[in-house]
């Protein structure tokens, strides 16, 4: 249950309410919202207490969010939250484009791609150093060396970087190399020990939807991060597994407008992993932005046929230029704007 208190409620009153709920044996979480105090109460609340809370003068609205979601629930914020990734602000009325190679394939390669990403007008550089591959015989990524090369490419081009973390044991390497945003991949969305570990890292997290996860399960994974102390969480829809075989996965844009009602977290879409086919990524990106996504994440490679992973879904640099231009148009016609280039 979420209690939205009246704007201007004295801190003393908020504390008194907070303590009185704790005396009832309930766990109380406070929103970081500055404009008004908002308290979330975890657990089962007796009806009599619920009724008495609703009658309190400082309680303006009592909201029952979906299930036990609290910290990520829409009612915990006055406005949708904005997540800073380096100098890029994700959410809040602008649209961002995240782009880069699926895998970091070498220092020169990732730098060349980063320059193309920057020149195209995209905002965040992505690149995998630890790769969760279906087959153990496929390229597994360059590991820590890949993180170093990605970060160097980001610094050389002024782009913040995002990379996937698969194992909590690798967290010190991500921190040491100052990776701006930690990505939790689809396969690890419900790896709760990983979520708990990275929640404490003080870094933004891009949480992809599990390939067989319901929206509720996805949001609970985000709640794990928030409950663990992570205050900068972004969600990324990347396609779910269905009976359809024409595409790698099925891009579930249906949930985007609903997610806006359920959570304050920024919503991104990765059409590349959903489609698995490069030529259909531009229309899916346009559709994602039209459906309200705060940005799209795509893969780019100069010679996709030679990519060490996911070549069939990589855009050519010229196609990325076109995608950013189209994203600008879609952002404008949906009442938003493309984010300015990173400083």
């Amino acid at each position: 249950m979420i209690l939205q208190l009246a704007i201007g409620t004295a801190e003393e009153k908020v504390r008194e309410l907070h303590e009185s709920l704790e005396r009832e044996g309930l766990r109380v979480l406070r929103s970081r919202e500055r404009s008004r105090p908002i308290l979330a109460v975890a657990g089962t609340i007796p009806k009599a207490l619920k009724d008495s809370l609703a009658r309190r003068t400082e309680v303006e609205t009592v909201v029952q969010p979906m299930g036990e979601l609290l910290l990520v629930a829409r009612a915990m914020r006055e406005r949708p939250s904005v997540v800073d990734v380096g100098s890029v602000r994700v959410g809040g009325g602008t649209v961002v484009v995240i782009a880069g190679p699926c895998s970091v394939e070498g220092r020169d390669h990732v730098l060349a791609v980063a320059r193309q990403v920057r020149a195209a007008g995209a905002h965040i550089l992505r690149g995998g150093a630890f790769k969760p591959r279906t087959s153990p015989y496929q390229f597994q990524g360059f590991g820590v060396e890949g993180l170093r090369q990605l970060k160097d490419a980001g610094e050389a081009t002024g782009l913040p970087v995002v990379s996937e973390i698969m194992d909590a044991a690798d967290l010190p390497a991500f921190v040491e190399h100052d990776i701006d945003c930690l990505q939790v991949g689809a396969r690890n969305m419900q790896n709760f020990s990983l979520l708990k570990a990275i929640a404490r890292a003080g870094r933004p997290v891009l949480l992809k939807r599990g390939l067989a996860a319901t929206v509720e399960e996805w949001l609970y994974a985000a709640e794990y991060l928030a409950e663990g102390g992570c205050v900068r969480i972004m969600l990324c829809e990347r396609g779910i597994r269905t009976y359809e075989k024409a595409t790698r996965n099925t891009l579930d844009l249906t949930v985007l407008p609903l997610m806006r009602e359920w959570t304050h977290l920024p919503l991104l879409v990765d059409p590349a992993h959903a489609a698995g086919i490069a030529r259909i990524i531009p229309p899916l990106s346009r559709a994602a932005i039209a459906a309200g996504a705060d940005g799209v994440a795509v893969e780019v490679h100069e010679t996709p046929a030679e990519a060490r992973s996911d070549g069939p879904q990589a855009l050519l640099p010229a196609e990325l230029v076109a995608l950013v231009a189209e994203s600008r148009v879609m952002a404008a016609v949906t009442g938003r704007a493309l984010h300015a280039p990173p400083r």
Partner: protein
Amino acid sequence: MNPALRHQLRHLDGAILALLDERARLLVQTSAADPLRAAPVDDLLRRHTGPFPADGVTEVFAAIDRHCAAFRAEDAR
């Protein structure tokens, strides 16, 4: 006027205005050293297949260029 038609026109005008704003933002983000190059109107006219008169296209884009240049100069000061 038919309310649905009025609604559609208002929506289209809003989209046109949003696109003009986005164009102005993009020009401001461009390095001051870059010359202001508007998209050639000839190229637009070659691709133009709709009913909006060609003279009007030229006129509208000349006005857009003029206002964007003035806005950009003002922003640079």
